[in-house]
Structure formats: C-alpha cells, structure tokens
C-alpha cells in the first residue's frame, strides 16, 4: 500500500480520532552490562565482550548493576514518576537464538517507576504525555542473517550471532494511551521522543543516539470514530529509529487505518515495519494468538528496594528539565522563539551555553555559532559539535573582538586558522599577524597619508559632509590591510579635520 492509495491525512482526521502509545527503549551508557561485569564498548569485535552469565551458560547467575538501577530511578524521577519501594525482576520466556537464556530478565507487574508525565512543546503550546511506567531489562544479542535477499531471517542460508549486546541495560519507557492530540498526533509523537532524548542526555545516563540503536521507538496506533471513547484495534510499528521516522510512521498509520476502516475493513493487531525510503509500513509477524511469555518473578535475584532517602538523594542530582532550561536560556539570551528554535535544531544550545560560561557575551556566542560556524559545519557536512573548535576558543575570539583587538573580518580569519589546526586564537593571531593596528602613531600616519592623498574628500568633510569620511576610512583600512579598528580610524579623521562626529 503506497501513500497514493490512502485517504488524505485531512480526510482521515475528519472522521477519526487517533490514539497513540509509545514504547521507547533506551540503552544505558553504563560501563558494564545489566547483570554481569562485561564491558559495553560499542563496536567491539563480535563475541569479545561476553562471559558465562551473558552467554546464559549453565550455572551462571545474574547480579544487578547498581549504576543501572540508579539511572532507572533518575529517569523515573525526571519523568515525574513514583518510584517503587520494592520491585522485582521477572522472566519473560520466549525462544530466540539471540536470547542466550531463552528468557529475558525484565520487569512485569512491578516496574521501578510508574505514573509520571512529560510535557512536550508542540506548535508553541504544551502537551502533556502521561507515562505508564519505566522498567529495567536486558538487551538481546544481535543476529545477522546471511544469504537472504533482505537481511531478514526469511530465506537466509545461515545466521551469525553476536552476544556483545546481550545483557546491556535497557530502560523501557511506556506511555499511557495518548489521547486528544488529534491532527497533531504525529507531531506530538516526534516532540515526545525528542524531548525524552534530550532528557536522557541531560541526565547523562545515555547518549541516546537513535542512529546507533541506543534509543529505539515502537509506535502503537489506533483510530476511533470521532466522538467515541472505545479504543480501536492497534498496530505496533517496531523500531522506528529517527525523529522524522516517528512522525512519518504515525502519519502513515493514521492514513492506513482510516483507509482500511473507511472501506469497511478491520485492523489486524500486528507488528509492522517502517520503511525509511517511502515512509510506509508493512506487516511483520502476524500474531495468530497473543504471545504467552509466561512471566514469573526472577528467582535468581532479590527484590530491588531503594530506600526513600536514597531516592531523595537522587532527586537532588536531577538536571533542570530541558524545556524549562530552554525557556530560561532564551530569556537570559534575549533570543526570539525563532532564534531559540534554530539554535536548538542546529544542536547549538549546549555549545552556546559553554561559550557564554567561558566568558563570551550571549549575543556574540550565538552570532558565531549560528553564523560563521553553522555555515562551516553545513559546508563540511558535520555537526556543529564536531567542528575542530571549542567553546572556550570561540569565547576567546569573541573577547578579542569585544576588546577591539579584532574586527569581524579578522575574527573570521582567526576562526579559520583554529579550524585549520593552527592552534588557539591567540596563536593564530600571532602567527598570521592579524592584530588590529592600534598603534596610534602608525594609525595617525596612515590617516595623515589618506588625507593628503584625497584633498577633495577632506575639503568636503571640513565643509560638514561627515558621511564622506567613509572613503577615507576605506583608504586607511586598505593601507593597514584591514587590521585597523574602523571606528577609531573614523574618529581620528574627524579629529584631524576639525569636525566633531
């Protein structure tokens, strides 16, 4: 089913009310795995970060990673959740070759965190997404299917198993049904995942890079006729792995559901795969019967019972909520909504903050990162943060400009030098000889020369046409190869010609 065959988005929303449920898995950035001491370094050779426990060898036992529990509690608190006084792990039983024990240690009816919410910004307004629960579990290994056409298990000749990922701590965050978003549903989904990602990063518990699978989203969607309250049958679109895809997948499913329902058909409860290329979803495994995971409390682990004092101590370590922080910064910087959004979208907010912290004025910090540096990053096709210049260096450039040691043109050359690896701003200034000519004697001589060489212009200025001074300033700047402070030059010219500016 291509997008062309579907009823339009507007028509879909004219008849139906979308209800979403978002399940986000976050891989924690702990040094070791959830239940053993194996390293979690990304990209290590296959099966080099394994031990009896994460390989599910007979006799091995899990031991809970305390840092992972701490991260889970902090995520729960940041999502305004209640934290369980006592909760157990549970075994989720199902057979799959990349699951070493053929059960996943997860949490079932006793999650570590529950009943929270996250406010997200949509269209300048705030939308509250309610959180059902956040629970801890372990990741599976990775299967690579060889010989098949699509990389899927179907048609493959054989499969390779890498258990490095098996046992990496995951936090699964599940929303309550998201109702009332209406036509904004795809946007809400995207904003929620974006806000969650920023929160996770601010907490420092994961880099949450979706392109690396450190954050994965499943989007559940159902439609109900406008004005009704009962939920329709839902589809579960698995592993939607970018913000843009989340938005597109929800949008597509809304149109697909509306088309099926509009033709009198029924929605099958199934998992679906999202395709980045054309923005469609296709059915995955059809669930003939509800999968029975035979959950039961994990007998190899004792309950997790975080003391209240400890939870409160962790609450004290929470960063300022990203949304509130953005609002505060915007006020402090005196930036417009548009400017703030641009900085946010360009990934410049943290860089600007660091630059201000290093001594630059906010407007200068914003100007450099969103101007010259954004242009360079764009040209080079890299993220701003990947440029070979630090906020401290940018701050130094801004300071030199503020002092009048550099003008903008020279400052751009300094930045170019830093990016080219020529060293710190001061080193580049020195090596390239980029200092503004501030030696009054040298500058005075250049001004006198310019006046002498342009008697006509000088007369006009004496006669009161101050605007004509521009030509003389240009001549001085040319003579000093741009290394003069233009404002000072103008001052000197007017002074010499007996005119007050």
């Amino acid at each position, binding site marked *: 089913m291509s997008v062309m065959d579907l009823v339009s988005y507007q028509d879909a929303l004219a008849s139906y009310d979308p209800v979403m449920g978002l399940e986000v898995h976050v891989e924690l950035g702990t040094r070791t795995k959830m239940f053993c001491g194996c390293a979690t370094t990304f990209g290590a050779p296959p099966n080099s970060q394994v031990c009896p426990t994460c390989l599910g060898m*007979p*006799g091995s036992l899990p031991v809970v990673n305390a840092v992972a529990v701490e991260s889970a509690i902090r995520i729960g608190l940041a999502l305004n959740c209640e934290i369980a006084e006592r909760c157990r792990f549970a075994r989720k*039983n199902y057979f799959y*070759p990349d699951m070493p024990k053929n059960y996943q240690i997860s949490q079932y009816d006793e999650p570590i965190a529950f009943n929270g919410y996250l406010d997200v910004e949509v269209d300048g307004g705030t939308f509250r997404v309610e959180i059902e629960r956040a629970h801890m579990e372990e990741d599976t290994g990775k299967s690579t299917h060889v010989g098949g056409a699509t990389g899927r298990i179907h048609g493959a000749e054989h499969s390779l198993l890498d258990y490095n990922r098996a046992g990496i701590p995951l936090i699964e965050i599940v929303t309550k049904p998201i109702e009332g978003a209406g036509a904004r549903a795809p946007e809400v989904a995207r904003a929620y995942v974006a806000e969650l990602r920023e929160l996770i990063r601010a907490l420092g518990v994961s880099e949450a890079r979706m392109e690396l699978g450190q954050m994965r989203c499943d989007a559940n969607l159902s439609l109900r006729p406008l004005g009704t309250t009962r939920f329709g049958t839902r589809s579960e679109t698995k592993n939607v792995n970018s913000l843009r895809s989340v938005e597109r997948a929800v949008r597509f499913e809304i149109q697909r559901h509306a088309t099926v329902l509009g033709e009198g058909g029924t929605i099958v409860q199934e998992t679906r795969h999202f395709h980045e290329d054309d923005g469609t979803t296709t059915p995955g495994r059809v669930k003939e019967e509800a999968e029975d995971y*035979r959950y039961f409390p994990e007998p*190899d*682990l004792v309950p997790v019972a975080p003391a209240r004092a400890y939870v409160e101590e962790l609450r004290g370590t929470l960063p300022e909520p990203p949304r509130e922080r953005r609002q505060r910064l915007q006020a402090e910087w005196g930036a417009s909504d548009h400017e703030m959004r641009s900085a946010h979208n360009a990934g410049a907010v943290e860089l600007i903050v660091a630059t201000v912290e290093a001594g630059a004025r906010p407007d200068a910090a914003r100007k450099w990162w969103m101007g010259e540096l954004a242009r360079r990053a764009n040209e080079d096709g890299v993220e701003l943060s990947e440029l070979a210049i630090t906020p401290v260096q940018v701050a130094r450039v801004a300071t030199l400009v503020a002092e009048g040691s550099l003008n903008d043109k020279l400052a751009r050359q300094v930045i170019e030098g830093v990016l080219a690896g020529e060293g710190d701003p001061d080193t580049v200034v020195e090596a390239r000889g980029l200092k503004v000519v501030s030696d009054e004697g040298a500058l005075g001589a250049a001004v006198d020369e310019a006046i002498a060489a342009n008697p006509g212009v000088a007369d006009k200025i004496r006669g009161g046409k101050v605007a004509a001074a521009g030509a003389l300033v240009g001549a001085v700047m040319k003579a000093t190869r741009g290394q003069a402070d233009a404002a000072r030059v103008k001052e000197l010219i007017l002074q010499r010609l007996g005119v007050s500016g």
Partner: protein
Amino acid sequence: MTDLTRLTAAQTAEAVASGESSAVEVAQAHLNRIDAVDEKVRAFLHVDREGALAAARSVDERRARGERLGPLAGVPLALKDIFTTKGVPTTVGSRILRGWVPPYDATVTRRLKEAGVVILGKTNMDEFAMGSSTENSAFGPTGNPWDLTRIPGGSGGGSSAALASYQAPLAIGTDTGGSIRQPAAVTGTVGVKPTYGGVSRYGMVAFSSSLDQGGPCARTVLDAALLHEVMAGHDPLDSTSIDAPVPPVVEAARRADVRGMRIGVVKEFVGQDYQAGVKERFTEAVELLRELGAEVLEISCPSFTYALPAYYLIAPSEASSNLARFDAMRYGLRVGDDGTHSAEEVTALTREAGFGPEVKRRIMLGTYALSSGYYDAYYGQAQKVRTVVTRDFAAAFEQVDVLVSPTTPTTAFPIGERVDDPMAMYLADLFTIPANLAGNAAMSVPCGLAREDGLPVGLQIIAPTMADDRLYRVGGAVEAAFTARWGHPLLEEAPAL
C-alpha cells in the same frame, strides 16, 4: 598399614597435616578404590585422575614449604556433576550437555580448590537433579553399596554411593526437594541441606532456583561440618546468597549435646503409611534423644500435607524456564544441523533427543503451570502454600529448637521398581520438601537398619534458617550415642563389595 580409604575426612586431614600420609598417597588410594569397585557401583560419571593427583601434589608441596594447610587440605572429594568445573566435563546427568567442558568454576568448586580439597571426579545423578533414585541419569543407574540391585537415592545417588563404598570420604550434593538427604538416608551416610542462601549457587546448574541448595555429604557429622564450613559463606556472584557469618557448625558438631534442647516431632508425618522398620527406627531415635536430655514435643504443621503438590508446581515451573537455555546454539548437544533445518528446528530436535522423559515431563508441567490463565491457579497458588509452610515452620520454631522426622518413608527400593510410576517416586520426598519450600536447614543422619530388609534408615533434623549449627548438635549427639550402642559406625555393617 591403615587403609586410607577407611579414614574419616578429619582423620585424613590430620594424617596429611602431620606428614603421616602424603596427599598424593591418599588420592592414589582412593583412585585405586574407584578402579576396584566403581565398575559395580557406577558412582562416577567422570574420574579426573590427573587433576586429583595434581591437586594432591600441590598440597604436599605447600606442606613441604611450611605453609599452613586448611582443615580439609589433601582430603579427596566426589563432586556431584551439577557443579561446573573448569576444563572438566559437566553433564548434569543429561545427554544434552554431553561433551560440554565448562570454561569456569562454580564458586563451590573454587572454594574446594582453594581449601586444598582433592576433587576425584564428578558423580552420577538424576538428569538435572530431577528424581529420587538416580535412575533418571542419561548415563545409567548407580547401585546402592548396601545392595547393588537397589537405588542409592536421588538425585545425588552418585555422591552418596561414593561415600558408602569408601571411594571418597567427602562428597557434595544439591538438594531441591531432598536430593541430599534422601540419598544419605538410604545409604547410611550423613547429608545436609544448608539454609537456602547459605551456599553459593553460582556455577551450580539450576533446576529450581528458589529451592536448589548445595550442601555437604559425608560419613560422619563432623566431616560434614568441616565441609560445610569450607563451602558456605557469602558470594557476591549469587544475589540470593546470605551476607552473614556461617553458623558455627564445626563447633556444634564437636559439642554434640542435646541436653535442654526442645525437639519437635511433626504430627502430620506420624501415621503416614510408611515402612514399619522406618517407623520403628524413628521412634527409637526419638526415644534416644529424650534419654540424652532433650525435651520432645509433638508439633502440628498442618500445611505440610500441601507441600508436595506445591513443590511439583514450583519446581517444574522454574525448571521449564531454567532449561530453556539448552537450545543447541552455544554449547552441548546439537542435532539436525545439516543445512536442511532452521535454527528453530535444530533447537527442537536437540531438545527432543537430549532430554530424558522425566525432564520433558517436568518442562511440560511447568510450562503449563506458568501459562496465562493458569498462572494464578497453579504457580500463584503454590506460592501461597509456600508462605503458609514458612509460617508453620516459624510457629513451630517458637516452641522447639529443631523438628525431627524420618528422612524418607521407605528404605532403598529396588532399581526399576518405581520408574513407571512417577507419583510413587515423588512420595520419596514427602518429608524433605517442606524444608526446601521454606528455606530451612535440614540434615539426615543414620539411625539404624530397618528390621525387615536390613537397610539403612535416616533421621531428618530440621532447624530454622541460619541455625544450621543446631543440626550438627543434634546429629552429632545421635551419631555418638548410636555408634556407642552399636559398637561401631553403621556403615561397617554394609556388605563388602
């Protein structure tokens, strides 16, 4: 010259420490004994001659260097084939693990090695510890040294038979529903199930995680205590392991005094239809305890009658999940990997070929009991029984210091008698199961021979959790008094092999 295989572990350790015997001599004597009798007994699945002699040599070298040796250094031991041993095969009595050589040592294995205990080899057992006769081993049954046509108990029949046939003075078993105590009872040896969490389960292949507990097996109460002290203690690799000092079991075994103790006889276990000779010996043991100065009370634990059915829901449920890992992907048997079968099919074919009938029966039972729609009625209900059993124990231990009962309803039954009748087989664990459900410490100590068949009978002693030392006080007293009455240890009445 003394026969080194007849010494107790305590005597052996002393002989090695004093230089009277070398550890190598002791190990060699036991290896010779194994060569002489194990063809008949079939206690061992794997004998690690080189490993044993190397460990013994190392003890002798340490002694020669003047190092202080531990209380069991140089003493040989038979290890149940359920503990992983680095570089030495571990089968758990199952075809599905045939040929698997673990890359790591169980915590118990490591502690034994560190203590200078000489591991002779791995002993036979019911497959995955599921059984009460060792007949469920994929590698054939083990004979009871008292009568080779009879079962040596199970699941740890290999360990108890090794002790009773003087192939080792020490052995280690695991007890999920009685697998240490019942084999001890029917072979006239001593077996202890420590408090749950007292001995690390790391590297002990899981049958039922919330019930499994490793423990010491020996020919004397003191030997069991010495081994208990070496193997027990907190292990950070096992989250359910108790972080508290090991109860003073050796001191208690030496004290062996019951004067002033209050001992409870469980009313619900009296009058069950068990063998007359068992009842007679048990009554005699209770009488003996009274003579030794204990106060004997009758105690009611009404929930104990539900313990057996609850156990047969909980243990299979956990087993169905624990045994899911045997899927042919990473280790052990692999069947059907010829390019014509999918991974899923290979897993199914391997499990079909690799598991025996009793294991399959319990996997199916457990899978069913955990299924949605049945969970509350089966697994959930069984957990409630467990809570009530624990409460009954708690109430009982407010009135008495320990409880006693026969260890098993009958003496060793003939090999083959109950293989087709799982329910009859399950009844062998009737008296032992409550202690597993509640996590209590329990011991079986010999209390004589049944009049009608001349086979050993065991007295079960149950203590509160983390009061394992009480077992040794009572067991030690019973052992000393009976040995004095009989004029020799019970095992000396066993026929020569």
